């Protein structure tokens, strides 16, 4: 009795993936042949039954097709709508980025700073008195002026 096909072997047969051993066994074993034939018949009956139940006249298919097509344009604007929204967001972000970005390139800025520093150094070198002593010169000049005025009044 243990030599009969297992449940899995019968299922493999139903799926069409059984091996040679199973097929050879079915040729000689009437009990297993009856089992698989019952299964085959049940599955074929189910398939034919569903096919027969799903059979409809031409009017049914036409009305179904019409119902689908009538609903299609109403639904169609959704993907387009979202595409427009996405495009507008991208344009807006790009515009914001463009208006916020610095208009002068960095290289020009550093070049101007270098020129200003060189001019400042040149100015310092060309002075008679260093810039740091300029207030002292003014004080001395004022003092000399006061002394001169006093001398004149005497």
């Amino acid at each position: 009795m243990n030599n009969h096909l297992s449940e899995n072997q019968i299922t493999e047969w139903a799926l069409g993936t059984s091996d040679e051993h199973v097929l050879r066994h079915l040729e000689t074993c009437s009990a297993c042949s009856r089992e698989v034939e019952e299964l085959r018949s049940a599955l074929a009956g189910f398939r034919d039954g569903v096919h027969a139940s799903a059979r409809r006249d031409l009017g049914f298919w036409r009305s179904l097709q019409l119902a689908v097509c009538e609903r299609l344009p109403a639904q169609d604007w959704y993907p387009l709508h979202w595409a427009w929204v996405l495009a507008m967001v991208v344009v807006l972000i790009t515009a914001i980025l463009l208006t916020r970005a610095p208009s002068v390139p960095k290289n020009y800025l550093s070049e101007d700073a270098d020129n200003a520093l060189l001019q400042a150094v040149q100015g310092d070198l060309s002075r008679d008195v260093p810039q740091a002593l300029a207030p002292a010169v003014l004080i001395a000049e004022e003092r000399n002026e006061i002394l001169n005025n006093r001398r004149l009044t005497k």
Partner: protein
Amino acid sequence: MVQNGQAAMMIPAQEGVGLGMIALDDFTPLVEAHQRRIYRVLLGMTRDPDAAQNLTQECFLKAYQKRGTFRGEASVGVWLLKIAVNLARDHRRSRLREFWDRLASSSAEVEELGRSLPDPQASPERVILGREEVSGVWAAVQKLPAQQRAVFVLRFVEEMSLEEIAEATSLKVGTVKTHLFRAVHAVRRQCKRGNV
């Protein structure tokens, strides 16, 4: 084995690459080519003709909305089935619907399915046995979890390959096989119980 599936998939993958650009006029033939198969799968999964009809419409509306995401890795037919399977799964998630489904488990549709077995040559006894057999399988399929029911219907109603089922259900081939094993076991158990 997959002759029905191939017949329903009229637009091969390469032609479907530009689906994102498809116009309304071009979408109508697509509906015409695939509506029967989508309806059949949804009917097999929901057992409810009204729900199958509504979900078929939803499937094509969703496909039209998402046409830009179709990359042509699978055929249009398998891509549509993927949408249909997801819709059927969402449909079943409603607890209220499950309640009514269970209540109607021996409903007229099951009987109608049994009656629709086309075998005019069979003896009256064989016809009765056949009807009971089909009704038994149908009832067993409705008790399967959503994922198992989907792979079972795609395999045994649409006769799709394991690879196509994997594509349509977003599962690995090994997982599809496992689901099929469990589904067939459950159906066999249910049918045997029904026969006792």
